[in-house]
C-alpha cells in the first residue's frame, strides 16, 4: 500500500457489486451485534462496554453446546437466548446497577470492568486458542452471480431482520415493552406510576444480552471463537449504534448495512489492512458532526 499520491484502483461493476453484496452480509452481522447495544443505550442511557465480552461468552456457550452435546448452533439459540436473558438480568440487577450508584460515567467504568473480567476469565479457562464449529452445510449456498452466498451468511441476514422485527413488536405490543418505553422516556414519571425501574433496567439489559446471544448463534458457523472476538466487534457495534442513532432499532439495522458495505468497499479500494480505517473515520465524523445519528432524536 503506497501512501501519498496513490491512485485508486479501478474495478469493474461486478467486482464493486460483489463487494457491496458481501458488505450487506457483513453488515447484517454488525446489525445483529448492535441491536442489543442500542436497546440498552436507549433505555439505560449507558454505553455497555461489556457488550463485546458478552457476545464472546455467548459464542463460547454455542461452541460448547455443539462440541460437547452436539447441538446445532442454530438450535442452540433456544438455550443461549433465555440463558443470555437471565445472565444479563442478573448482571445489571446485582452488579452493574448496584455498583454504579445511578451515575452514568460510573456505569461506563463498571461495564468496562465487567468486560475485562469476562474477557480474561475466558482467556484463563479457555486459553487463546481459536475454536471453530464446522456445520455440515457451512459451504453450501446460493450463487448470486456476482458472489456466492453461503447459508450461514443468508441466515445472519434473515436473522438480523427477524430479530429487529421481533424487538420492535415486543416493544410496541407487550406490556413489558410499553413499560420499558415509558422508563426510557420518563424515568421519574415511570417510577411515580409504580413501575419498578430497577427491574425494567435489568429486563432491558437482559433482552440486550439475549439479542447478543442470538447474534452469537448466527455468528459461530462463520467466525472462530476466541477471547478477543468480542473486542473485534465492539468498536464496530458502537459505530453502528452511533451512526444509526443511539436507541433506534431501524438505525442499528441500516447503520449495520452501511458500515458493512463501507468496510468492504474500503477494503477493496484501500487494501485489506487500511480498509477498516473507514469505520473509525465514520465513527469520528458522526460523533463530531451528527451525534444524534441518522435516526436519533436526542443526544444523551
Amino acid at each position, binding site marked *: *500500500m*503506497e*501512501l501519498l499520491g496513490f491512485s485508486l484502483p479501478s474495478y469493474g461493476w461486478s467486482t464493486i457489486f460483489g463487494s457491496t453484496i458481501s458488505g450487506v452480509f457483513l453488515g447484517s452481522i454488525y446489525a445483529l451485534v448492535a441491536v442489543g447495544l442500542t436497546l440498552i443505550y436507549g433505555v439505560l442511557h*449507558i*454505553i455497555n*462496554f461489556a457488550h463485546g465480552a458478552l457476545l464472546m461468552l455467548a459464542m463460547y456457550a454455542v461452541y460448547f453446546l455443539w462440541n460437547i452435546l452436539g447441538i446445532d448452533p442454530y438450535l442452540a439459540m433456544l438455550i443461549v437466548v433465555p440463558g443470555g436473558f437471565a445472565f444479563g438480568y442478573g448482571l445489571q440487577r446485582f*452488579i452493574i446497577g*448496584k*455498583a*454504579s*450508584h445511578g451515575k*452514568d*460515567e*460510573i456505569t*461506563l*467504568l*463498571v461495564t*468496562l*470492568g*465487567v*468486560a*475485562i*473480567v469476562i*474477557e*480474561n*476469565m*475466558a*482467556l*484463563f479457562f479457555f*486459553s*487463546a486458542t481459536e475454536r471453530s464449529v464446522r456445520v455440515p452445510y457451512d459451504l453450501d449456498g446460493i450463487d448470486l452471480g456476482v458472489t456466492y452466498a453461503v447459508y450461514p451468511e443468508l441466515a445472519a441476514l434473515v436473522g438480523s431482520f427477524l430479530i429487529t422485527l421481533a424487538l420492535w413488536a415486543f416493544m410496541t405490543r407487550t406490556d413489558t415493552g410499553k413499560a420499558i418505553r415509558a422508563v426510557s422516556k420518563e424515568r421519574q414519571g415511570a417510577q411515580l406510576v409504580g413501575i419498578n425501574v430497577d427491574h425494567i433496567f435489568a429486563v432491558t439489559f437482559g433482552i440486550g444480552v439475549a439479542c447478543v446471544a442470538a447474534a452469537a448463534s448466527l455468528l459461530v458457523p462463520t467466525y472462530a471463537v476466541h*477471547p478477543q472476538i468480542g*473486542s473485534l466487534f465492539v*468498536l464496530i457495534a*458502537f*459505530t453502528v449504534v*452511533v451512526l444509526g442513532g443511539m436507541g433506534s432499532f431501524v438505525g442499528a439495522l441500516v447503520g449495520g448495512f452501511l458500515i458493512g458495505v463501507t468496510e468492504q468497499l474500503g477494503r477493496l479500494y484501500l*487494501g485489506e*489492512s*487500511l480498509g*477498516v*480505517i473507514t469505520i*473509525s*473515520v465514520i*465513527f*469520528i465524523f458522526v*460523533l*463530531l*458532526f451528527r*451525534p444524534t445519528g441518522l435516526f436519533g432524536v436526542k*443526544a*444523551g
Partner: protein
Amino acid sequence: MSERARLSGWTIILLTLALLPLYLHSARWIDFLEMTLFVAVLGQGWNILGGYGGQYSFGNALLFGTGAYIQALLQFKFGISPWIAMWFAIAGVVAVGAMVGFLSFRYGLRGSYFALITLAFAEAFLVLSRSLKSITEGGSGVQLALNQDPAQAIATFQFNFAGPFLKEYGFYYTIFTILLVTYAITWWMERSRFGAQLVAVRENEDAALALGINTFKVKLGAICLSSAITASCGVYYVQKFLFIEPGIAFGPSKSVEALFAPIIGGLGTVVGPLLGSVFIHGVGEATKMTIGQALGGRPGVDLILFGTILILVLAFLPRGLVGLVEAVWKRLSGGRDA
C-alpha cells in the same frame, strides 16, 4: 488531612521509593517496582484530564503509542539522539492530544461521547500504524539497535551494557525521576488557579462558565498536560524495551491500564494513581506468589483481579483508596485533623 501531614507523607513515600531498590538489590523486584511506577505515571496522565477534569478518556493508548512511535522512529530512521527525540515525542503527542481535545470540546462531546471518540482515535491510529508500512514499519513493529558499548550507555539512553550501577538501577531511577517531575507538576496544578478551574469544570460546567472560566481552554490545557505526561511513558517504554509495535502502542491495554490506577487509588488526587498502582500490582504479585503454582502460570489472572478490584472500588469506595486512608487517618487522629 493538613498540608503538613501531606508533605510528611510524601517525604516518606518518596524516600522509600528512592532507597527501596538499593535495599532490595534484586532484578526481579526492581522490575516489579519499575512496572509499578510506570503505571503510576501513566495513571497520572489519565488522572489530570479524567480525575481532575472529569473527562474520561478510553483511548489514552493514542497518546502513549504516538509518543513511543515518535521516540522509536526518530532513532530508527534518522539516527536522532534519544535525548533529542524525546522532546519531539512530547511535542508530537501534545499536538495529537490538542487536536483530539480541540475537536471533542469544540463540538461539546461529554461523558460517554468523549470516551467513545478517544477510543475511536486510538483505534484509527492502531489501523494506521499497521497499514502505513513506509512510515511505521507496519505490524512487525520497530526494533532499535542494541548498544553494546558501555561508554555510549548514557548517550544512547540504553543501560543494558552500562556500568554495574546504571545496568541495575538506570531504568528504575529514570522512571522514578519521571514520576517525581510529573507528580510535582500535578501537585503544583492542584494548588493553582488552573487546577481550581479544572475541578470546577468537572463539578459543573455551566456554573464554571458563568463564573468567567473559559471551559474550552481549561479542558484543552488539561488534555495537553495529560498528553505530555503520557508521552513520557511512551519514551520510557521504548528506551527500556527498544521495541514498539502497533498492538502494544495503540491497543486497548494501555488505555485500560491508564485508568485502573487513578480510579482505584482515588480520582483527582495527586497520590491516587501511585497508591492505585502499588495496590493492584502488589495484589497481582501476591497472587502469583501464593497461588501462582496452582494456576499453572495461565494468562489473564492479573486482569481478572484488576477488573474485580475496579468494580469493587466503584461500588464501595467512591473516593478510592485515598478516601479509605483519609477516613482511617481521621479516626486515628480523633477527628481533629480532617
